């Protein structure tokens, strides 16, 4: 196999120009691309396209909170940085802290996790619940889109050949209750078999907001505002009567697991029901364990 060209830009401007001129594939942490293209010990991985190593671009690093509570996460932020940041949302911290092994969490980046568009990717799942946006930059400018719209299906995103993911933007959140589960083969160092985030905002006994997102349960992270709306605006006291329709819709229509579908539908149903029942039982505000 012929060796592909590799570019090592020092600045974002340089990287964007190379991206435009060559369409080279961006490589950030390498944890997906190096494995996907591996040819074994002692052999250079068999990349099919030229590679643009963006690992060291200072413009894509750092996590900050803006005055209105919006959180901007540089695309090169690692899982560890996201997990330990004082300003990232707890649901995103949970997902980041459970990705792979310790060493992987020090390499893998949020931009890569989104761009790789695996339905088992850990971070897109809470990001989609949180209405997060990706910022896509090219030499011609910048555009933003919801992570939910950016990831189209397994391994397919809306990125153009001249763009780089530069940031992830999470709007301010107002939830009284949050819930996160990751099911894997073991507690650490495991790929997700099934994940779920759920969040609710309960004010004066009324469900002001309710969201859920399911990972590893379809060709992409699955969320449905339409099904969520079955619960929104109702009193908590009405949830026992409403939850059946919600759970039926979520577990049969929203998620679309291709393997072991009965297991994934049942496990998702039980997790969501547990969360809803906790709300009905008056669980104190915060994380539902």
């Amino acid at each position: 196999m012929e060796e592909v060209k590799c570019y090592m830009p020092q600045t974002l401007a340089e990287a964007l120009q190379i991206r435009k001129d060559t369409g080279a594939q961006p490589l950030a942490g390498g944890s997906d691309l190096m494995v996907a293209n591996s040819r074994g010990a002692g052999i250079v991985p068999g990349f099919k396209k030229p590679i643009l190593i963006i690992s060291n671009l200072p413009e894509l690093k750092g996590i900050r909170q803006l005055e209105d509570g919006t959180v901007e996460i540089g695309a090169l932020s690692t899982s560890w940085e996201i997990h330990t940041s004082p300003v990232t949302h707890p649901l995103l911290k949970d997902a980041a802290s459970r990705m792979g092994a310790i060493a992987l969490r020090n390499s893998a980046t949020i931009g890569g996790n989104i761009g790789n568009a695996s339905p088992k990717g850990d971070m897109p799942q809470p990001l989609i619940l949180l209405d997060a946006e990706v910022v896509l930059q090219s030499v011609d400018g910048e555009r933003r889109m919801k992570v939910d719209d950016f990831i189209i299906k397994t391994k397919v995103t809306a990125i153009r050949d001249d763009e780089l993911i530069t940031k992830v933007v999470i709007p301010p959140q107002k939830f009284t209750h949050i819930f996160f589960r990751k099911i894997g083969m073991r507690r650490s160092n495991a790929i997700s078999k099934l994940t779920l985030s759920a969040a609710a905002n309960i004010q004066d006994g009324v469900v002001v907001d309710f969201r859920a997102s399911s990972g590893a349960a379809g060709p992409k992270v699955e969320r449905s505002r339409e099904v969520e709306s079955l619960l929104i605006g109702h009193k908590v006291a009405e949830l026992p009567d409403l939850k059946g329709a919600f759970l039926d819709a979520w577990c049969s229509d929203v998620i679309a697991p291709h393997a072991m579908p009965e297991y994934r539908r049942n496990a998702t149903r039980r997790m969501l029901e547990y969360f809803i029942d906790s709300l009905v039982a008056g669980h104190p505000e915060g994380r539902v364990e």
Partner: protein
Amino acid sequence: MYNDVRFTLNGQPMVYTGNPLRRLLDVLREDYGLTGSKEGCGEGECGACSIIKNGKLVTPCIIPVGSIQGAELLTIEGIRDTEKGKCIIEAYAEGGAVQCGFCIPGMVMATYVLLNENPDPTEDEIRLGISGNLCRCTGYDLIVESIHLAAQKGAALWKK
């Protein structure tokens, strides 16, 4: 644009001019003769190749050498003669942590990072600290006990 890769390896400044897409693990083993890092899975899951990059544990089997521009790398060869390194190695020997030994360099690197960050870890914290390092021989218990031993015996070292 960078035309080479400059980094620090066990305290020595290095300039790498080869293919930036080679795996850092291959460069360490073949170009620099640092064979303490072992290749197990080649996918960042087993931890046998673990080294320390800017103070953090990483697996060089999934890192292209072109991405470590400016980094400070420490391998097992860089810590084995230090006080902290000797403390861990002696504790592993005394505690009987080693059977075949293949996972041990990576395990020692994970221990080094763990004790630097947490000089007095609980058993759970130790198990979490080495959760990315797989061992097929020991069943882990003697490794966990040996890490306890390293924390106790080296207390002053780790607390700085």
